[in-house]
Every structure is written in C-alpha cells, then in structure tokens.
C-alpha cells in the first residue's frame, strides 16, 4: 500500500472532501481535543518545562493520531475537509525517509533524525532573522552575509517578505510581491557569494506561493538544494497558496520545509489540547504536504502561549512544545527542528537566556536547530536582528547535545527563572538593530555586544554547560 498521492490529496482538498463551515471544523477540534486529552490522561505539569516521561509522549502521540484521523485538515479556500483513513496515515509515516540532503558542493549537508536525548550534535544549524523589518537591497544582503560568515551555520531561513519593493508598500499576492520574492532570493545568493559560501542552503518563507515560486532559479535564486517553507495555519488548516507550493516543490524538486503548531487558549483548548493538536497538525503536514515524497524537513509542534506574543520560551508553551517534540522524535523517522521565537530583542542578556533555554530543551527533546535568530520584534523597531544570536544558538546547541531530559529540565528551569518575570505584554527589552550590534563596514560584532555574548556563555558554563564547538 502507498499513501495517497498529491493528486488524490488535491482532489480531497478542492473537489471531494466534505463541505464544512470553518467554525464547525474549529468546534470539532475543540471537542475532540478535550475528550482525547482526558481519555489519554494528558496532564500539564507547570513545574516541568522538559518532560522526561516517555509514556506521556507516546500517549500524546496516540491522542494526536486519533484526533487527526477523526478531524482531518481543512482547506480554507474550498471549505472542504481533507480526511485520511488510519491505514493511509500509517502508510504515509512509513514512507518518510530518514534523511534529507541540503546545499551543494562544500555546503552539502545530510540531515538525519535526532532521537530524544541523542548524543550526536545537531544535523543542521539553520539561522535567520524572523519577522524583522529590513529595508530592501544592500542592508538585507549584509545581514545574510554576516550570518553566512558564521562557519557553524548550515543554512538559513529567509522570511517573511520585506515591507517594501521598489520603494512601494508590498501587498500579499500582488505582482509586486512576486517581484520582491525574486529580488529577495537573488539578494540571498549575493550574500552567500560575498561570504565565500555560494552553495549554502536557504529556505524561502514568503506566505504567498507566487512570491516563493518567483524566487526559484538554479542560477541566481532558490535552487533545488534550497527549500520552500510551507505552513499550516492554526488549527489544522491549509489553503491553495500552501498547496500550490507543495505541488510546485514536487515538480521543481526542491526541499519542502514544513511548519506548524497549535495555540494554547484557542480552539485547541488548554496546554494538553494544544499539545495533541500540535501532533495532529504535524500529521497533517506529513499527509497533505507529502513528507514521504521528495526531500523534506519540518519544524513542528510549536505550542505557543496565549496572547499577542507567540513565544514558547516559558511555560505552558515550552512544556507543550517539548512534549510534542519528544512525541514526534519517538514516532517519526524524519528531521524536525524548532523555531526560536523570543520575547526579548537581539543584543540583550534576556534574549541570550531565552535562546539558551530553548536550545537546551529542544536538543534534549530530539529536535534539530532551526532558525535560531528568531524574534518577533517588528512591532516595536525595524532592523532588529544580527548574526550574533545565530552564533549563540549554534554554540549552545552543540554544547547541549547529549544532555538527558532530567538535567535539561533543571538547567532550563534555572535559566527561565532569570527572565520569566521580565516578560511583559509587549515582550521584553526591544533590543538593538543590526547597525547597533554590528560594524557594518567590517561585518563584525561590536566589542560591547561581544562582551555580553561572552558573559552569557560564562553564565551557562557556571550552570554546568560545557562548550565544545
């Protein structure tokens, strides 16, 4: 038996799936997640950001599997539910390859599955700066050049699109966004050429298909050894933009980077329900986004806290994210990373601490390192982000490899205790811009921020973490 092909999946999404109102689909998720979290005995433990309970992880996996089988995924354009039989889901999981190859030449990397408490180093360190508002052109090139200059970085995430193109505000799905998608991919290629790493991998993360597809070009854009980021929308939803990217990635032959997770306090319910829905959401990516066909890596199970800040560097978001990470690592044969969304901005003691806690928790839970410079700070100040936090994320990730969950849990609790009370409705300290942290002529960090970096490392060493990279 084989899992349904992309054409069968598209049929279910566009033509044959049961027509359902979005609000009815949402309510079904709520009621099924509530029932399954009780039936499987899933209980949130606020004192344990990194669970060490294999039985709990496997129970959560089973509950997530049952939820996905019962509820399916929802196509927002057609209003149709995409459902799969149990045997189809098991076939889909069996077809997943244990590895994915990214990059070319000297930058070629083979990504492999990391297990829970795996002693091996991360198989990918994917950097990037998420959702900061950079101007088009030279400064954007310099940002990614500075990240590519970090030898420990194996690739990076590029997205979402910049705010402007040709000096004009960019609107999603418009011709200008297509032009911007093409421009951004060529600027990233220029950045890696300048860094002396022309074959370095990146994943393009424009929300609309037209922008991502416009950037695909073997010579000077998104290559087949690069990737397209394809997201599920909370909860368990897809749309024609994402499905177009899947169909295109399969035709073009590039890597699919898939992303998803659940939100605590929404239709998933509390932390327990959100953990279960995160696992179902991951299974939706496996089946709808075709994990068994072509190269793929994922970033799934991000269980986010309620409110305006979608961070997971504190409980209950961290508990849910690590539980789902363990459930996926124990029951799936592919590569799964972790987004690093922090409350504090770059160049601050608090952000270094948040990155450390997220790295340590994620590595012990079987995840790889995905997008370590992540920060959602465009709300307060443009151009927030630099390569320095990417370097920190990589170094902590290597140091954390091999930690068992009990030790990781204790370390994380100590680190979180240093910043938890600093998190406000607005996040934390805004942080500093690329130009404030880096000398833009030499593309090196300024002394003040290097000292802060060393201080943050020293603090972790004093807590018992051994840096080895």
């Amino acid at each position, binding site marked *: 038996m084989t899992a349904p092909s992309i054409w069968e999946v598209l049929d279910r999404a566009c033509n044959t799936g049961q027509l359902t109102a979005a609000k009815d689909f949402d309510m079904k998720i709520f009621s099924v997640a509530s029932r399954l979290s009780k039936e499987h005995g899933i209980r949130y433990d606020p004192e344990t950001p990194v669970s060490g309970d294999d039985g709990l992880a496997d129970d959560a996996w089973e509950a997530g599997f049952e939820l996905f089988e019962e509820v399916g995924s929802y196509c927002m354009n057609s209003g149709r539910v995409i459902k799969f039989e149990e045997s189809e889901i098991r076939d889909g999981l069996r077809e997943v390859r244990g590895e994915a190859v990214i990059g070319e030449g000297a930058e070629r990397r083979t990504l492999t599955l990391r297990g829970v408490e795996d002693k091996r180093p991360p198989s990918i360190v994917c950097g990037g700066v998420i959702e900061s508002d950079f101007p088009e052109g030279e400064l954007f090139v310099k940002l990614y050049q500075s990240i590519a200059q970090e030898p420990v970085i194996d690739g990076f995430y590029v997205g979402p*699109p910049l705010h402007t193109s040709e000096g004009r505000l960019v609107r999603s799905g418009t011709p200008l966004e297509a032009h911007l998608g093409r421009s951004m991919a060529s600027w990233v290629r220029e950045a890696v050429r300048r860094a002396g790493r022309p074959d370095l991998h990146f994943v393009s993360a424009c929300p609309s298909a037209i922008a991502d597809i416009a950037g695909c070009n073997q010579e000077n854009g998104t290559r087949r050894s690069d990737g397209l980021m394809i997201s599920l929308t909370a909860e368990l939803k897809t749309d024609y933009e994402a499905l177009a990217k899947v169909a295109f990635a399969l035709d073009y032959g590039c890597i699919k980077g898939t992303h998803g997770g659940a939100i605590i306090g929404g239709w998933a319910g509390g932390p327990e329900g959100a953990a279960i829905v995160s696992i179902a959401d991951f299974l939706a990516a496996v089946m709808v986004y075709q994990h068994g066909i072509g190269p793929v890596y994922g970033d799934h199970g991000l269980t986010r806290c309620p409110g305006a800040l979608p961070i997971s560097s504190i409980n209950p978001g961290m508990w849910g994210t690590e539980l789902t990470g363990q459930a996926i690592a124990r029951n799936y044969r592919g590569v799964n990373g972790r987004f690093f969304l922090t409350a504090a901005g770059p160049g601050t003691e608090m952000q270094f601490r948040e990155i450390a806690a997220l790295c340590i928790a994620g590595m012990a839970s079987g995840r790889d390192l995905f997008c370590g410079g992540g920060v959602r700070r465009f709300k307060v100040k443009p151009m927030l982000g630099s390569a320095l936090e990417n370097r920190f994320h990589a170094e902590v990730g290597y140091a954390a490899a091999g930690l068992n969950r009990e030790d990781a849990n204790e370390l994380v609790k100590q680190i979180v205790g240093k910043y938890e009370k600093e998190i406000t409705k607005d996040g934390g300290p805004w942080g500093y811009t690329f130009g404030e942290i880096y000398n833009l002529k030499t593309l090196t960090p300024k002394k003040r921020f290097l000292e802060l970096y060393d201080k943050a490392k020293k603090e972790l060493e004093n807590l018992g973490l051994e840096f080895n990279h």
Partner: protein
Amino acid sequence: MEAAVKVLEEHVPKEELKSTSRGTVVIGTVEGDIHDLGLRIVASMLRANGFKVHDLGCNTKSMDFIEKAKEVDADIIAVSSLMTTTMPFMKDLIEALKATGIRDRFKILLGGGPVNERWAEEIGADGYGRDASEAVRVAKELVAGRSG
C-alpha cells in the same frame, strides 16, 4: 461556541468579561490573509460581552467590510492582519471609507500579530487591541465614545 468561550474565559481577567457595553461589530481578516484563529477568539469575546458580531471570516476585501457595515449599520469595523504584507490592506480599507464619504460613520479597530498602536495611528484607525481582552475593552470605549 459557548464551550470555547468558557476556555477563553479561564485565560482572561474576570473583570474583562463583564458585559457593560453593547454595539454592532463587523469583523474579519483583511484580503490575502487566511489567519482566522485570533479573529474568531476576538469575535467570541465580543459576543460574550454583549456585542452583536458579524464575522466575515478571513481574506475579506475592503468593499465587503464596507458593504456589510452599511447593511447592518455597524458601530465598529474590526480588522485583523497576521502578515506584514497584508497590513497595507488595512490602510486601503480606511482610504476606501474616506473615498466613499462614510469614514466617520464607523469606528475602525485593528489587531493582529504585526500590527501595533503606531501603525493604527499612522493609517488613521480609531483603536488597537494587542490581544482579545484589550480588543474588547477598546471596542467598549469606542462605542461609549459614539453614544457619549
């Protein structure tokens, strides 16, 4: 729906949930944006607080907001965006209201991940809610301002 609101209530200060104001709200996510979770939470919270809510869902065009608001004689048009590339459609909505000469007929309330107070001021909106409970509070203030 009531069950979901019950869960939401556990995460929101009780004083935010007392029904003190009523009004009519047309709510939706802007054109090109399919993120509807926050929108539906805010819609539920507004209903729980006594507002009459017309939820247009995600990917709603400016003229659809305006037509519905006119049809139901709304007090507030509440608009969300989860992407930086869909935020400009909020500006387009306000421009369309101005162009049709009915800007003053409705209060505009904004929300969503990348949106902030500065953006709301910049494009001439009347209010901004950083989360669901704040959106309810601001909606109450906007309605009180209209009747006061």
